């Protein structure tokens, strides 16, 4: 997930760095009045935890494995501002200790994982939670949806940055967008499931932690800005799906419809998610992105429901195991 140096041009790195610097600076300013003198131990410990949590490998049935990214998780516990700072400092430390992620690309990584992940993710989470009336289900569903949308929004922003880094003549951007969005719809499902499970365990054991982070000032301005931020994240996620249509199919809606028909005929023969090889072939962008989007949304929805139902039954056993140190 980390962008290394060399992907983005220097000017794009500087621009994303400036945006991230502004966002993190503002977060630092806001963080102090919500956490007070607990800022340093709480944020630092959260950073260490995300750092360590990323060492836990989740098997996906392939030689590679996934891990937690933690933006939404940090925001769920610490609130958006301290969450953003914690994730930013994790990225800094990963560069300074592991040379993981580039130095110039740090601004872009912070924008994707800390700003979109924590601040944007928090806005989505709170909005969904309010819509569902709070409580266990609402909290878990909110975190699941937020984690998925935050990953997708990050992939949309990455595509934009990538597009700005290279001249259009060099190659076809529609295809690279398709691949990126399809992959991130899947990666996002993983992140959503992990975040949902972790948040539900915490809600079972220490609901006060999450409620404290959620009980921010309920002024009109705050809720309006939350809705705006949530809308922005959703818009970015939608843009991620729309990008291949816009850039890969310049001849308009007719051709979209045409390709949909052809693609739909082929699709029936070949299984639901099986067609990643087909992505490089021209004309498949629309279908594969739609399948990834709709499929991903369904899986995320199912995960939200399943996690909400699965955890309460097993919670006592886990508590017993965990406390018997």
């Amino acid at each position, binding site marked *: 997930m980390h962008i290394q*140096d060399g992907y983005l041009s220097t000017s794009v790195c500087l621009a994303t760095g400036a945006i991230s610097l502004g966002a993190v600076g503002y977060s*630092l300013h806001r963080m102090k009045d919500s956490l007070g003198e607990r800022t340093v131990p709480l944020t630092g410990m959260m950073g260490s935890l995300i750092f360590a949590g990323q060492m*836990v490998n989740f098997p996906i049935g392939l030689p590679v494995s996934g891990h937690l990214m933690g933006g939404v998780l940090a925001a769920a*516990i610490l609130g958006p501002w301290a969450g953003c700072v914690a994730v930013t*400092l994790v990225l800094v430390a990963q560069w300074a200790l592991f040379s993981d992620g580039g130095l110039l690309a740090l601004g872009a990584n912070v924008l994707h994982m800390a700003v979109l992940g924590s601040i944007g993710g928090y806005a989505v989470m709170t909005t969904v939670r309010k819509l569902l009336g709070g409580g266990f289900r609402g909290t878990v569903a909110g975190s699941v949806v937020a984690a998925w949308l935050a990953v997708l929004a990050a992939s949309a922003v990455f595509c934009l940055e990538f597009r700005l880094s290279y001249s259009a003549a060099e190659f076809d951007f529609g295809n690279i967008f398709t691949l990126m969005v399809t992959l991130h719809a899947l990666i996002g499902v993983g992140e959503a*499931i992990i975040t949902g*499970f972790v948040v539900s365990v915490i809600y079972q054991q220490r609901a006060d932690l999450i409620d404290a982070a959620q009980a921010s000032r309920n002024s009109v301005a705050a809720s309006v800005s939350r809705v705006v931020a949530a809308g922005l994240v959703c818009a970015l996620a939608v843009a991620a799906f729309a990008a291949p249509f816009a850039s890969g199919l310049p001849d308009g809606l007719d051709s979209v419809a045409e390709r949909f028909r052809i693609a739909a005929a082929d699709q029936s023969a070949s299984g639901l998610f099986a067609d990643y090889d087909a992505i490089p072939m021209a004309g498949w962008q629309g279908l594969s992105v739609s399948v990834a989007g709709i499929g991903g949304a369904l899986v995320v929805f199912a995960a939200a429901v399943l996690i909400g139902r699965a955890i309460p039954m097993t919670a006592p056993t886990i508590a017993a195991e965990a406390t018997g140190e």
Partner: protein
Amino acid sequence: MSDFWDRYGRSVSICHRMPPVLKLVLAISVIVAGVAIPVRYWPAYGVLGCLVFAGHSIAGIPLGYLIKRLLIFLPFVGSMAISLPLSQGLDRGWDLMLQIMFRGCLAFLVSLWLVNVMPFEQLLVTLRKLKVPAVVVAILAFMYRYVFVVWDELDKMRTARKVRSFSGGSLWFRWKTLSQMIGMLLIRSLNRAERIHGAMCSRGWDGEVRWLDDSD
């Protein structure tokens, strides 16, 4: 494990004795040059490459270590870069992929040099001198202090899980147990943070970060 990442950070060489700000500036300028110079000026890349390897050899970082680290790094940059030709039907994008991989490796080697000539504590002191907000440096220091503790805790939980043979099961079940492990780790860590906060308060902590004279 922690020894692997900055194994040569405490050895002695001209590179290690350089003023820390100079190290940072040197590393950043080589990375910027590596990303910004267009590929058609390829001799410049030869110069940069020689510079990087000279830096490593002066700092006394052995070649075997560099190769080991590069081998771990290559799959990451490679898997992302391969998506370029893959998305172009395997007939275009190879040159861009090579360019990205080359630049990525160069920047990685420079970062590796910096990590190995500048221990984390020194980076923190340098950040202080560069007027980074005190609270940021304090959080980073706190993180560095406790990340190893949390790692140990995670190791204990892993061992406990293995001993009780929670390993098999469906993918869904495994994801659930692993996530619950992270959740429990989080709760324990936050409990620990509360204890530490109590200890800090009883020693007069009031939220203001104060530093001893950091002239070293």
